[in-house]
């Protein structure tokens, strides 16, 4: 079903894109691509937007401009979680191998020979981070600025996860360091990616959009698998002890290698807030920058694959893609601004999630998520009640399962949502102490375990209008008693142990309302057409 929706939706949007201008085959070339595959629709009408005339010099610079890590005692602490560190090293090889093959005339075998070579590396990851420039030297010579943008933002990725995996910093210090890294990222070079939410439908509706995923679904699947990993690792590490991080990555690493790398039926790239909503709430600017970086990867891949462009057009469109997502192009704009609706300067974000731009087919209220259907980022995914925001956002538990991470409103919602979802799950349940959340792991059969043996719960089930009150977790009985002393309403509340809590299952929430898509959205139209055929 997902596959049908994805492919038909892609086809619909590709069709829409072809209503712009240009001619078929104007630009068959030898270096990249291979027109004989003909996976893209032959159009007579594609219009490429030119690169603006006034762009900063850095966009055309040919210097190496290599800037290294910001100094810090946390550097390379990702190796505290070795399987994750190694997997990230392999991601760098995967990116570089694919780009090099695309520019040296081996695109025809990208989904076969290149895929096999990359896959071998993913299964035998290097112990140290490779220099991508050494693997993709031709690509670097031709697209030096692009490589610098990628490399610089990858450094931000690497250093922020080093901070999160560090055992030398407190949680407060980690938050501070991450902000310092962001400042370092944005002020050290002119080619930082914008931290603003971008309209994803706009970025993915260029005349060349979606070419790569259609022609090379397997390598595109790998790219999106990397982006899944580079997103989901943040909530897996954020606010967790090293033991919890290791236990979490045991589950997520297996899923990455068994499922996420090989998915070819995603309708869109994994978005950061879909997999790490806690980190995205706390650092929306960083979540947005990573989504924009990942979208830049998609745009560039699509340009490389578009045989109807000349080499010169490709070079220009790559520069234009960099420009569109650059911080420079959006100076003095802010999140929420809409200079042009559904265009380059549409910085609206999902309600309840400042770290996510508007998605294809959706609006500010709802977005479509594969396997989940329509969903709202502002509401509990289990009971539909509004989630806490701003300074209170940390109070929302999360459930990580089946490749997504969902925010919910209370411990009961987290437990029941995990029980109603196939496979293993990771539950993040805040307690009265922001720095001591409960880490709960669910096995395939829904058996829950935690290492916080003294944790207690109150759960006096009623309407979910107040579930954040009647369902709460505490680090200890003493903490609950203290809470009751300050909240006389709870004086008759009974503490239940973790095991008693884990054995329960609540009623279906009385407040649940199934989210629906915006009227006339293309996703539902395609889905209903496909359902007719099933």
């Amino acid at each position, binding site marked *: 079903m997902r596959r049908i929706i994805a492919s038909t939706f892609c086809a619909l949007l590709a069709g829409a894109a072809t209503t712009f201008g240009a001619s078929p085959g104007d630009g068959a070339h030898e270096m990249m691509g291979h027109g004989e595959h003909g996976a893209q629709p032959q159009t007579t009408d594609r219009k490429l937007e030119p690169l603006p005339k006034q762009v900063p010099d850095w966009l055309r610079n040919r210097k190496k401009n290599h800037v290294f890590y910001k100094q810090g005692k946390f550097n390379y602490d990702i190796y505290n979680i070795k399987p994750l560190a190694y997997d990230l090293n392999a991601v760098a090889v995967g990116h570089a191998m694919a780009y090099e093959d695309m520019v040296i005339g081996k695109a025809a075998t990208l989904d076969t020979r290149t895929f096999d070579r990359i896959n071998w590396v993913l299964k035998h990851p290097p112990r140290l981070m490779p220099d991508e420039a050494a693997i993709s030297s031709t690509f670097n010579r031709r697209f030096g600025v692009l490589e610098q943008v990628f490399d610089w933002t990858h450094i931000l990725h690497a250093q922020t996860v080093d901070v999160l995996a560090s055992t030398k910093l407190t949680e407060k210090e980690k938050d501070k360091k991450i902000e310092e890294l962001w400042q370092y990222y944005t002020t050290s070079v002119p080619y930082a990616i914008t931290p603003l939410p971008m309209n994803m439908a706009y970025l993915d509706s260029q005349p060349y959009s979606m070419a790569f995923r259609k022609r090379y679904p397997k390598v595109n699947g790998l790219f999106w698998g990397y982006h899944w990993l580079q997103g989901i690792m943040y909530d897996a590490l954020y606010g967790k002890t090293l033991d919890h991080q290791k236990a979490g990555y045991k589950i997520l690493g297996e899923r990455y290698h068994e499922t996420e790398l090989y998915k070819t039926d995603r309708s869109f790239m994994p978005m950061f807030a879909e997999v790490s909503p806690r980190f995205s709430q706390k650092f929306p600017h960083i979540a947005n920058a990573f989504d924009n970086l990942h979208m830049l990867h998609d745009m560039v891949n699509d340009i490389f694959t578009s045989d109807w462009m000349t080499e010169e057009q490709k070079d220009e469109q790559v520069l234009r893609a960099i420009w569109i997502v650059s911080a420079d192009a959006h100076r003095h704009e802010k999140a929420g601004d809409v200079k042009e609706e559904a265009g380059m300067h549409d910085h609206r974000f999902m309600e309840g999630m400042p770290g996510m731009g508007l998605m294809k087919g959706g609006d500010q209220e709802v977005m479509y998520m594969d396997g*989940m*259907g329509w969903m709202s980022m502002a509401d509990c995914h289990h009971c539909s009640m509004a989630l806490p925001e701003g300074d209170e956002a940390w109070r929302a538990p999360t459930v990580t399962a089946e490749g997504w991470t969902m925010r919910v409103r209370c411990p009961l919602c987290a437990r029941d949502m995990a029980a109603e*979802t196939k496979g293993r799950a990771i539950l993040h349940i805040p307690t009265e102490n922001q720095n001591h959340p409960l880490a709960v792991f669910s096995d*395939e059969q829904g058996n829950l375990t935690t290492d916080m043996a003294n944790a207690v719960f109150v759960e006096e089930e009623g309407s979910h209008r107040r579930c954040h009150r009647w369902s709460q977790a505490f680090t200890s009985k003493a903490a609950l008693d203290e809470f009751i002393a300050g909240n006389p309403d709870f004086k008759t509340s009974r503490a239940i142990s973790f095991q008693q809590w884990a054995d329960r299952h609540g009623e279906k929430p009385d407040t649940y309302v199934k989210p629906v898509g915006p009227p006339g959205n293309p996703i539902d139209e395609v889905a209903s057409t496909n359902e007719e055929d*099933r």
Partner: protein
Amino acid sequence: MKKNKTLILALITAFLTIVGQAPVRAHEAKCPHCELDVVQDTPTLDNEVALKYGKKRIEYRCVMCAIADADKNYKGDLTVLAPTETKGKRIEIARKGGQWTGPEGTVFIAHKVKHRYCQAGYRAFTNKAAFDTHVQKNKLQVAGAEPVTLAQLVEVASKEFESEK
């Protein structure tokens, strides 16, 4: 004035009472097997099929989806709760030691239909008469269907899984 206030309060209370007593709305998900929406229970007919695996309770769109997914993705013992013709009366189909069993007298329909009609094409009944009524009621989709046993339904579901491999 005081009367008005009392009236307003009474109206608000009545409204809240009505809202509070609205039919319970289920947490709705996609069927993990066919990825179509899980058809919700109605006031007169149950539709949701549940697979219980340890403490997990996963909802499916039809009994065939649940059994096919059990074949494909679950090891060990489990139970499928399948709706019948009677509201509030689901039957338990269990897989224990690899063997499927269900309540005596249960019959199933396993009639190949477009999957959006799977609620009509794959279903459990507590007796043959209920099966006949269902076929009569849904003759557009399932005309000519014959009742099958649990073993036959499991075989159909296994073939479905085989054809996916």
